[in-house]
């Protein structure tokens, strides 16, 4: 495990740290790693889409966040492997007795990648920018606790106090995703209100400074972004040599996943993330020759689910869907559908066994919060038929299922056409439900057209979607489970919870939000999982494994299921190996 | 040793069944140096196939047997590459259709220079000089360099024909084969071409094989004449080829007292040619005040060189085009004022027979369809009537009804013209306008059709307006003659007197090169 040492370093410069400035006496560096690394080399990774902006306040798409993540640092960082917050730019922090105020003491002597010193003013500036309505930064909602923004006060040049409206269990997580902005570069743009057009891809490298391990070197439109080593980075290895080891980090933009796999196989890219199971099998076949490091990191936090449209359709003339909602709102109907679905078939055929079947909303990948007591009934058509019979459904001689009023049970599952896996799942479910007489049609729709139906016009019957992301904490799902939440898709826009169990979930979620004790929070969240598994607003299907690959001679490659494979880019280095010469 | 010897030459077009008549059947012919031989016969008798066979220009589907020896060397069976040096240098050919035989996208002078460069190592300048010399050789005297750089569509028919001959002669070949050199030319241009051929033969000693259906052309152009029919060589009656065939005198026009069938008063017509790019199109005045009247039953001849407006006049009379001013009356009714049913009755009464019979009939239609078309269009009688009337009309124009359902694309030129006449008769016209209807036909066929028209005039009392550039034809067929020049009538009167006046006035307005008037 890494040694966690906060030490005022006063060692003399050791060894020929490549062009990086030798650690200055006054820098309070964070020491990490065994120090066996070797400087030099260029690491190339292919991104599936081109990042849209380098401005942390505006980035909403994942490619932009992945690149920005390598150029910025946050005050407190949550270790994705152990889920435990660790000191980052703040070398230590303390929480007030009432759990609302946090005092963070910043590391001294640190400098931005352009050499400008870093201090509390930059932190104050960052919070001011993120809380400003005009900027409409996506991180703004993180800073809203109990509906009121956090109040930030500067104690001295290297100490800051952040006070929340009410205690929040996930306070440390709040600091995790806030990238500290350089006041000296963005203050004028912020004051003139032109921050929205600051730090675009075309901005010259000199005008972009950050505290991350790398800084911008070059952007070539449509092809790649090249980051170079940040000579002032505030981390060093056990041998007191300043990190990162790599000279350059290059992100290539490739059209689609197949192009990405081909580039990785040809050696043009060194790391590949989020590989689909089929392509992972193709890479595995090349393994003996090419000596890749292929890792199956187990189930991710994402969960795929089938959701029936139970929205209130008053005012939207969708009579056909309204009629069908009588089925969708019937618990026996939903349970029958869940029982009839062949989850093993999905895992084997869609994911080639590299996925975990799901019966609840928490994936096995999130061992910290998973409620293991949730029943996981095997597929049984008979039980499904019994449940349907109990609700007054019957079957015609030709096997077609009809409801109490004699109407044939027929509905469509809409899927996003750009996601092959979900369309395949829908096709399997279509065949499964045919066995209990349901006539299901699969309708692939372009992604935005589908979303428009699900969250705006409610003009759909059922759809397969997926949630989840980089944060295991229950709070990241708050918008899904609260009845008034923006992602409460099965019935949106509820002012007050329409059903008793949704009311109970609201209470549970709000209580766990402010419960600091982990065991108590776990108990509350387990109850939520149990209700969801019983009421089945979402019929959970499977959680795909995280599959990553890297070159054989890339050392310290420790991809974490819940984060970007280059989360420890500052520790990566190339072991000298007999492979062909470096480019 | 003869220059060209054809021994038992036979050409058969392959997809045709075994028993079919070969296009050229066992022809033996020889031609000495400097000799001028004419080949004549009805259209479709194989004379053109014979010419193409000599130079190996037959399509791939042709199967050639027998021998073709040219100055001792066997040509039959030679590959395209071996024949190429001979074509244009040893033997060259002058094609019939001057309008399409020249490359429209290349100046004519350059096309002559091309032949020079194909057969010699002359550079661009050398070739240009020899081409200019060739132009002079074929009778161009004034501003030769302008002609050299002109494009084919900017020259007249006669000029284009002379370019073709220049192309054939520029490499001084031993033998020139001329396929219908004068067919599409008017009277004076034809005389020029024959003179050029004689001039080249005397000056360069070039042998000529002239193919033509017209006896006068061969009389002027050839020392001896070979006849052909159905692919075989047939003896030509010695004198028949010399004098023109005599027709029975045309019916004297009926008394002047009858009301005139056709009256044309001060007819004028201008064409506004909208040039593709020029903003202001320039006007060409085609008819400048025409007065004409025809009693019923008369046969009036209308003569004039190409471009004098005779076709436009024909179209105005037939109602295809509206005149700018003046009026046209047929049987009392004026085309300009009519609409609907009356205009249709007017149109039926005045029918136009076009020159190019191939284009006037839709090749996909069967003969019956073509003749019955007017009945179908105007809905006269039932479907069954149409067929029976069409067959009856075909008999009336002496066409074999057993081929009634064959496509009219498969009929000969003469037969197609008869179909056109039958079609016109379907609507019982009173006036037939023959716009160069007979100039494309060979002598024999033309005689038969004139006989047919004469007969129809007696049985149906038809009135004919016969338009042609061929004065000889008009002189024999029409009772009266009108001569048109640049949109005005320059002389009119009984046919015979009118003709003498034309010949006597050496400088007739439309004989451009007076020096060459004295025909061969």
């Amino acid at each position, binding site marked *: 495990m890494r040694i966690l040492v906060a030490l005022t370093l006063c060692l003399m410069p050791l060894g020929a740290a490549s062009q990086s400035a030798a650690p200055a006496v006054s820098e309070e560096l964070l020491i990490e790693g065994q120090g066996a690394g070797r400087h030099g080399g260029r690491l190339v990774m292919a991104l599936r889409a081109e990042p849209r902006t380098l401005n942390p306040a505006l980035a909403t798409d994942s490619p932009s966040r992945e690149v920005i993540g390598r150029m910025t640092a946050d005050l407190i960082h949550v270790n994705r492997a152990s889920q435990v917050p660790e000191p980052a730019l703040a070398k230590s922090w303390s929480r007030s007795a009432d759990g609302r105020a946090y005092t963070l003491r910043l590391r001294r002597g640190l400098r931005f990648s352009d050499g400008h010193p870093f201090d509390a003013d930059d932190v104050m500036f960052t919070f001011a920018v993120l809380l400003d309505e005009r900027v409409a930064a996506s991180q703004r909602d993180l800073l809203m606790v109990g509906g009121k923004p956090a109040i930030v006060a500067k104690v001295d040049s290297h100490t800051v106090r952040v006070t929340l409206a009410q205690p929040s269990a996930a306070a440390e997580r709040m600091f995790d995703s806030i990238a500290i902005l350089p006041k000296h570069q963005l203050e004028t743009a912020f004051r003139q209100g032109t921050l929205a057009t600051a730090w675009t891809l075309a901005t010259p490298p000199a005008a972009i400074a950050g505290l991350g391990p790398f800084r911008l070197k070059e952007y070539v439109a449509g092809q790649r972004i090249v980051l170079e080593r940040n000579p002032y980075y505030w981390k060093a290895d056990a041998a007191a040599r300043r990190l990162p080891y790599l000279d350059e980090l290059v992100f290539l933009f490739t059209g689609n996943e197949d192009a990405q796999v081909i580039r990785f196989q040809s050696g043009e890219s060194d790391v590949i993330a989020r590989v*689909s199971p089929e392509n992972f099998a*193709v890479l595995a076949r090349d393994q003996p020759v090419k000596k890749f490091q292929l890792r199956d990191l187990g189930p991710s936090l994402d969960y795929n689910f089938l959701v029936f449209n139970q929205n209130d359709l008053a005012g939207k003339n969708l009579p056909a869907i309204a009629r069908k909602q009588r089925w969708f709102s019937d618990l026996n109907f939903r349970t029958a559908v869940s029982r009839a679905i062949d989850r093993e078939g999905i895992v*084997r055929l869609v994911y080639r066994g590299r996925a975990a079947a799901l019966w609840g909303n928490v994936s096995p990948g999130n061992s910290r919060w998973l409620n293991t007591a949730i029943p996981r009934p095997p597929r049984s058509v008979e039980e499904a038929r019994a449940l349907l019979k109990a609700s007054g459904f019957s079957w015609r001689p030709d096997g077609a299922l009809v409801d109490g009023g004699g109407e044939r049970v027929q509905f469509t599952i*809409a899927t996003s056409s750009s996601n092959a896996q979900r369309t395949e799942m829908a096709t399997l479910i279509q065949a499964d439900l045919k066995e209990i007489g349901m006539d299901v049609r699969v*309708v692939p729709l372009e992604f935005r057209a589908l979303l428009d139906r699900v969250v705006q016009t409610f003009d759909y019957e059922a759809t397969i979607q997926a949630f989840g992301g980089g944060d295991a904490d229950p709070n990241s799902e708050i918008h899904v489970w609260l009845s008034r939440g923006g992602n409460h898709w099965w019935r949106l826009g509820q002012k007050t919870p329409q059903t008793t169990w949704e009311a109970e979930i609201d209470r549970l979620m709000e209580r766990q939000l402010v419960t600091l004790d982990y065991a108590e929070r776990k108990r509350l969240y387990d109850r939520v999982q149990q209700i969801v598994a019983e009421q089945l607003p979402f019929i959970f299907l499977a959680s795909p494994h995280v599959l990553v690959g890297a070159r054989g001679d890339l050392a310290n490659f420790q991809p974490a299921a819940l984060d970007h494979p280059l989360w420890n880019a500052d520790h990566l280095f190339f072991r000298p190996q007999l492979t062909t010469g470096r480019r | 040793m003869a220059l060209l010897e054809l021994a038992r030459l036979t050409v058969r077009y392959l997809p045709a069944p075994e028993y079919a008549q070969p296009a050229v059947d066992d022809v033996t012919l020889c031609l000495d140096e400097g000799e001028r031989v004419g080949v004549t016969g009805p259209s479709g008798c194989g004379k053109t196939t014979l010419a193409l066979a000599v130079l190996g220009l037959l399509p791939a589907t042709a199967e050639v047997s027998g021998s073709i020896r040219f100055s001792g060397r066997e040509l039959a069976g030679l590959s395209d590459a071996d024949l190429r040096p001979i074509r244009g240098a040893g033997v060259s050919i002058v094609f019939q259709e001057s309008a399409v035989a020249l490359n429209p996208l290349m100046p004519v002078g350059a096309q002559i220079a091309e032949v020079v460069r194909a057969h010699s190592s002359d550079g661009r300048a050398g070739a240009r000089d020899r081409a200019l010399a060739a132009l002079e050789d074929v009778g161009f005297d004034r501003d030769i360099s302008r002609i050299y750089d002109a494009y084919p569509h900017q020259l007249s028919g006669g000029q284009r024909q002379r370019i073709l001959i220049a192309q054939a002669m520029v490499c001084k070949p031993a033998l020139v084969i001329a396929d219908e050199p004068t067919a599409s030319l008017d009277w004076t241009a034809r005389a020029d071409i024959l003179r050029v051929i004689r001039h080249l033969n005397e000056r360069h000693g070039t042998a000529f094989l002239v193919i033509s259906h017209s006896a006068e052309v061969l009389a002027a152009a050839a020392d001896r004449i070979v006849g052909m029919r159905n692919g075989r060589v047939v003896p030509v009656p010695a004198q028949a080829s010399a004098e023109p065939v005599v027709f029975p005198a045309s019916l004297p026009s009926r008394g002047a007292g009858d009301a005139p069938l056709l009256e044309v008063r001060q007819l004028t017509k201008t064409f506004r040619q909208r040039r593709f790019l020029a903003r202001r199109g320039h006007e060409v005045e085609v008819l400048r005040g025409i007065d004409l009247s025809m009693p019923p039953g008369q046969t009036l001849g209308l003569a004039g060189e190409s471009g004098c407006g005779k076709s436009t006049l024909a179209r105005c009379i037939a109602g295809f085009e509206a005149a700018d001013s003046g009026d046209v009356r047929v049987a009392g009714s004026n085309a300009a004022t009519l609409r609907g049913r009356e205009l249709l009755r007017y149109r039926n009464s005045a029918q136009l027979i076009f020159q190019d019979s191939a*284009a*006037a009939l839709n090749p996909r239609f069967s003969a019956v369809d073509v003749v019955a078309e007017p009945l179908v269009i105007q809905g006269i009688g039932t479907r069954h009537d149409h067929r029976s009337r069409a067959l009856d009309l075909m008999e009336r124009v002496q066409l074999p009804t057993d081929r009634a359902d064959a496509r009219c694309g498969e009929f000969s030129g003469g037969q197609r013209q008869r179909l056109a006449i039958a079609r016109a008769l379907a609507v019982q016209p009173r006036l037939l306008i023959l716009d160069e209807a007979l100039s494309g036909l060979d002598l024999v066929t033309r005689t038969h059709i004139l006989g047919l028209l004469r007969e129809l005039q007696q049985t149906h009392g038809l009135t004919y307006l016969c338009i042609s550039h061929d004065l000889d034809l008009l002189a024999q067929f029409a009772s009266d003659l009108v001569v048109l020049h640049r949109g005005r009538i320059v002389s009119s009167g009984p046919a015979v007197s009118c003709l003498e006046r034309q010949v006597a006035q050496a400088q007739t307005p439309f004989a451009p090169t007076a020096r060459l008037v004295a025909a061969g």
Partner: protein
Amino acid sequence: MTSRRGLLFGTLAAIHALILFAGFFAPYDPAEQARVIPYAPPSRVHFVDVEGRFHWRPFVYAWTPDPAAYDRYLEDPTSRFPLQLFVRGAEYSVVPGIVTNVHLFGVAGPARVALLGTDGYGRDVLSRLLHGGRLSLIAGLLATVCSLIAAALIGTLAGFSGGTVDQILMRTADLFMAIPWLYLLFAVRAALPLQMDARDTFLLLVVVLGVIGWARPARLIRGIVLSARERTYVLAARGFGAPRRYLLRRHVLPQTAGAMLTQAALLVPHYVLAEVTLSFLGLGVGEPVPSWGNMLGALQQYHVLTSYWWMFAPAVALIVVTFGYHLLTSYVHERMRVVAI
């Protein structure tokens, strides 16, 4: 020459018969999933069994998945399943209304015969190819007919009337070629009601495609009509008082028949291919209805391309049919040109 022509017609007729009676010739229902054997290679038909005995009736072995690999299968030599003719299997409708379940060949019991292997869901590729062919060819021909009808109407109108009408129509044709069709198709599909049957959606889109594709053939037909209009026999017919409709029907349109045929030979494959792009954009026919378009779409995944060669079947079928159509149209065009001078 006649023998080659007979061969061409023979193969084309055979292919179309196979596709028309897909239900009978295909051993399985195209949508029936055998989830045990995804991406199975074409089954090997044996005459000689393991002990070397020869059997008149060809037979196959049952497959057992190879535990080591996801998509490799071992033949179980102990079980021998002879191929049977005229077996009873999945129901299908020969003609809407007549339903039967007789198939030309098949094999009994747990074993499955997949002459062209299976796809990702274990569905029989041969059955999908035949059933899919029916949909793709109908879609291809339908779209071609639509665009040619539109092209003929507009081309003839422009060619025949000339002047400003001609200019307006031809400029609209240019415009149609300029519009990027991608998001038009999005707009059309997304704006449609959800409950449409997969096949209706597809046919509707194909009609939209057909109508969009009229611009190029229309320009061609206009050119031909312009020249046909000047022909003397058209002038003569007009002299007899023939109305415009008659002139078009009897004289002008037959002229364009040749060009329309050659365009058809180009458009049919183009529209079947357009179905591939539609599927790539997720707008093609929905599962489980098979079509050459979505089968080719599946082929366009890297892992399929590199490991399952039998998934190329739709590509090969499309090439054969396109070549057949090309020869057919050039032969007919040749014969028609001989007649028309």
